[in-house]
């Protein structure tokens, strides 16, 4: 019989999250971010967390909401623009920032979930990213050794999911969510639509339920667009 991961609501889903923990949060820019979980983390008022997330939101949305409340001690990201409060905290030294090449960030999360403690990549060789890291040549090309990333909690957002924790993402809202789901000790998935068991095609599942410990149906999604670019009709 399938293992149910379904919890009542976001409060139950975030139970056990504490100050000082390392959290992963899916999303690219504001696309595919776990809006409900972020709101709950703000409500919980936890402090001194380390957030692993490709970006840091904008001033008044996404991780920016946690930054406003000064809940984040350290960000591990690839790009943190578009956020004045972030800049202020970083320049004042309140916020520690670890910038990582985007592909290395994605691969390090996957590695964390896949039991690969370290791997070699050419990205960052010869730059300050390589400082203190082992360099080794493969096929005549220098590579640096990068280590796996894991988190106490991973928060991901999917389009559809079932009680077993199987997830399907929509379009480019997939981004970092699948790897972070793999790398969380406890992975919390919020979904736009929680469907009955057996409704998802097992062949179309992006994240198999084994990577998800808690799942709930979110609500009130704003899904804000960062750069609305259109052609006029």
């Amino acid at each position, binding site marked *: *019989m*399938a*293992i*149910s991961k379904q919890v009542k609501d976001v409060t139950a889903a975030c139970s056990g999250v504490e100050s000082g923990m390392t959290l992963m949060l899916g999303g690219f820019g504001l696309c595919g971010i776990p809006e409900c979980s972020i709101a709950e983390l703000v409500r919980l008022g936890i402090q001194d967390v380390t957030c692993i997330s490709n970006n840091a939101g904008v001033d008044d949305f996404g991780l920016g909401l946690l930054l406003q409340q000064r809940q984040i001690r350290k960000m591990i990201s690839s790009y943190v623009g578009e956020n004045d409060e972030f800049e202020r905290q970083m320049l004042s030294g309140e916020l520690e920032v670890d910038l990582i090449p985007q592909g290395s960030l994605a691969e390090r999360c*996957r590695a*964390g*979930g*896949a*039991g*690969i403690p370290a791997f070699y990549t050419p990205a960052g060789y010869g730059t300050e990213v390589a400082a203190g890291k082992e360099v080794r040549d493969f096929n005549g090309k220098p590579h640096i050794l990068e280590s796996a990333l894991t988190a106490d909690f991973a928060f991901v957002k999917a389009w559809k999911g*079932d*009680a*077993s924790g*199987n997830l399907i993402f929509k379009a480019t809202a997939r981004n970092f969510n699948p790897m972070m789901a*793999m790398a969380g000790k406890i992975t919390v998935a919020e979904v736009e639509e929680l469907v009955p*068991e*057996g409704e998802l095609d*097992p*062949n179309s*599942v992006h994240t*198999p*339920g*084994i*990577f998800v410990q808690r799942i709930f149906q979110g609500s009130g999604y704003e899904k804000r667009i960062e750069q609305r670019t259109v052609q006029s009709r």
Partner: protein
Amino acid sequence: MLDKNGIAQRIAQEVRNGWYVNLGIGIPTLVANYIPSGMEVEFQSENGILGMGPFPMEGDEDADLINAGKQTITAMPGAAYFDSATSFAMIRGQHVQLTVLGAMEVSQNGDIANWKIPGKMVKGMGGAMDLVASAENIIVAMMHTNRAGESKLLSNCSLPLTGVACVRRVVTNLAVLDIRDGAFHLVEVAPGISVEQVVAATAGKLVVPESVPEMQIS
């Protein structure tokens, strides 16, 4: 003394609600038959399915839906398919709570040998080395002695190893034994089996507590 089904039945008692379980070929496969209905347990097969169900009804078999033993199977509601890299990400990343597999030899250190006999045709380790190197909870299902009557629970494995210091528990036709601190620890004896019979059949270091209960299997 237990038969293969009895060993599987005893191992099924180890399974807890909410666990993902990988069952190896042979006796381990039988464990699925003894999981209480209603228990939330999902079977992972390393060729790419979570939520493996029983064999299909005659005529429903699908060449594209098999388990790691290449047997035709079915998928349960809530199942998912994935590629082999993702499958071993689950295994290596310790997302599977229990691994049950057979063995030719197990040592008192928890080493396991189950893939190669020198001088005989070597078929390969398949996924066994990944499973034993990664799983946190490995139970070996096997006969206590080989066909020549020699113990398969040894101080050191004589065959090429599959993994090192990884086996936590062994369930045989004679007993349940835990492995810790470099010794087998007798936990239970099979119905009708005496402690002395287990002692006689175990070549490795064996710790026997004062009182050893008999397995409770129906």
